[in-house]
Every structure is written in structure tokens, then in C-alpha cells.
């Protein structure tokens, strides 16, 4: 089987059990999935662990993927990432493992105001529901258009827009609480 050079060929190859197909998909989607998870976890190690689980999960459920077009495959990876992130957040909450810690040994420059603000957003996100978190990450971190999110979710653009509006309002309220506590 030839080495794939696009998403569709890679999915077809991967479905046939080709390691090359999987290697291609991994190289193509790893950065995006990592960025998605990094939006939720301050510790890069947590994000990396979740990404690893995403790809292992993907390898076990590829047969459920009905289309090989890039938008569908991308949406599929992000959907798995969303579930894994939710699981990890709930697992951390169940075991009372804090998600907000800055990683030990991290560059002190990262502790500057920007990193602290980013951490405030991550903490505030924990109060949002899964869909609200998802839309904010896709729109503000991954730069996905409303149309792209709508296509990925199979929902009208208006519904995504409304959800984003509510998510932002909720996030603002939660950030106000965080900042109110700090003052």
C-alpha cells in the first residue's frame, strides 16, 4: 500500500491496518489535538497524556468513522479529545487532584501575568458545561469559524453562535468571581 499523502488516503490506509496510515494521521492531527487539550490543563504533561489517550482511543474506534473527508476526520479527533478531556477533568475532581498547578520547574517567565490570566480562564472553564467549553476552545484557541464548528457538531450556525454567546457570558461571570476572590 502506498504511503498516504492526504487525510482520506491516510484514513483508508489506517482502516486497512496500515501503520503508515496511522503515522500520517498522527503527524497531521497531533499538534491540533495537543492545542485543544492544552487549553484545559496548565500542566503540559497532563495535556500530553490526554492526547496520547485520544490517539489510542482513535485506533480502537476508527471503524466507526463513516467518512474520510478532512473536516469529518478532524471533527472526529476533536470529539474524542473532548470526551477524554471531560473524563480527565472529572477524574481529577474525583481524586481531588488540582488541575490549576503550574508545572514544577517551569520557566519563571511563564509565571508572568499572561500565564496567570490564562490559568484564570482554565479555572473558570471548569464551571462551564462540556459544550460551552468546547465551543470556546474551538473558536478562541483553534480559530475555527462558526461554520466549521457547526459542521463538526451537525448543528445550525445560529445555534453555535447562541451557545458561544452564553458560554462567553458564563465565562465572564466566572472570571469576575475569580478576580473578585483575588482582590
Amino acid at each position, binding site marked *: 500500500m502506498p504511503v498516504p499523502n492526504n487525510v482520506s488516503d491516510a484514513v483508508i490506509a489506517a482502516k486497512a491496518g496500515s501503520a503508515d496510515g496511522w503515522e500520517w494521521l498522527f503527524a497531521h492531527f*497531533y499538534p491540533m489535538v495537543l492545542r485543544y487539550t492544552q487549553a484545559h490543563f496548565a500542566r503540559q504533561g497532563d495535556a*500530553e497524556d490526554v492526547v496520547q489517550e485520544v490517539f489510542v482511543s482513535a485506533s480502537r474506534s476508527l471503524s466507526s468513522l463513516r467518512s474520510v473527508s478532512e473536516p469529518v476526520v478532524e471533527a472526529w479527533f476533536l470529539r*474524542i479529545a473532548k470526551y477524554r478531556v471531560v473524563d480527565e477533568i472529572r*477524574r481529577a475532581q474525583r*481524586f*481531588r487532584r488540582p488541575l490549576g498547578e503550574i508545572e514544577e520547574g517551569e520557566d519563571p517567565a511563564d509565571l508572568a501575568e499572561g500565564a496567570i490570566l490564562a490559568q484564570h*480562564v482554565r479555572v473558570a472553564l471548569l464551571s462551564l458545561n462540556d459544550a460551552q467549553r468546547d465551543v470556546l476552545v474551538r473558536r478562541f*484557541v483553534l480559530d475555527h469559524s462558526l461554520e466549521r464548528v457547526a459542521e463538526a*457538531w451537525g448543528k445550525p450556525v445560529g445555534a453555535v453562535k447562541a451557545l458561544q454567546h*452564553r458560554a462567553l457570558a458564563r465565562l465572564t461571570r466566572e472570571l469576575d468571581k475569580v478576580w473578585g476572590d483575588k482582590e
Partner: protein
Amino acid sequence: MSEPHTKVQEALDAWRRATDRQPRPEAQERARRALLASVGAYSSPRTIFSPRRALAFVLIAAMVLFLVPSQFPTKNHTLPPTLATNEISLAASYIAQAPTSPHAQQLLTSAATLLAKAHQQLPQDHSAPVWKQWEDTQKELVTTEREVEHESSPSVSASPSPTTASSTTPKPVEGSPSPSRTSSDGGGDAGSGGGQDN
């Protein structure tokens, strides 16, 4: 101090910048290897009969069948979800085989995935015996991973990343769990699109 809406915008910008970290090569390589191990384990034929594997599976299944019912309180207790129990048992059998198998990492990765899957199906009631079964198997997985890592010589794994399997596992159990529930909106790998909103 900035106006509130400006500060929210600043926070969103900072958040966005914070997610723009480059992938770390060692983590990327570890994930790649875990993926390929999973692909190999999943796509390889499983038709060869192994008496040792069969014996281990039977022993563990018997142990589960014996232990789990005996731990049930007599009054109105929910039965453990069958799927979760099956997955935990299968994971336990993989773990049991790992120390003597040439495919230890693959077995442990598969066990970790099974346990993660089982975890999503555990009941809300943390006193249910299946929870203890899951936790014990999880601990066994962590211990076996350490043993396998310890025993593997550096020359065998020339490339860096000795923790392939361990990082696919749920984190070790610690503290007392609070009665929350794992994602009810799927947890599954290919569930329906994201969408519900409050």
C-alpha cells in the same frame, strides 16, 4: 485596573497564547509509540491458542466470580455493570500475562485502555464492589508497569520513552473519591457531536 470586558479579552488572549506551546518531542514520540502499539495489538490476529493465557484468564475469571458476589451486602445493592466487570477481568488477564510476554507493553497498553473504558461504566455508588475491583486492578497495572519497565534493558528500547503504557493509564487512585460520575455524555470514542447546553 482594566475595564471588565477588556480584562476578559486580555484573559482570552493570554489563554490562547498559553496554548501555543510547541509539542515536546519526547511526549510526541511516546504517544506515537503507544498508538502504534495499540494498532498492532488491535489488528494482530488472536487465533493462536495459548494454554498459559487461557489458564490465567480462567483463574482470574473464577476469582472475580467468587469474590464479587461475596462482597455484596444483602440488602438492595445494585449489581455491578456487567460490561465494566468483563473489561476489568480482561484487563487483569492482560496484566497477569505481561511480565512473561514478549509483548508486555502492548498488553499493558490494552489493559490500561480497558480499565479506562471500564472506569466510565462504574456505578455512582463508590462502595459497590466493582469499584474496589477496578481500583485493585488499576494498582496491579501500575505495579506491573513498573516491574516491566525495570526489567527491560536499555539496549532493548534504544529510543527514549520507557513510559509508553503508564501514561495511557488513568492516574493512580489517591485520596478518598468523591461521589461524582464519569462522563455520561459519551466517554465513548465516537459518540454523537458535542452539543448540549444548559
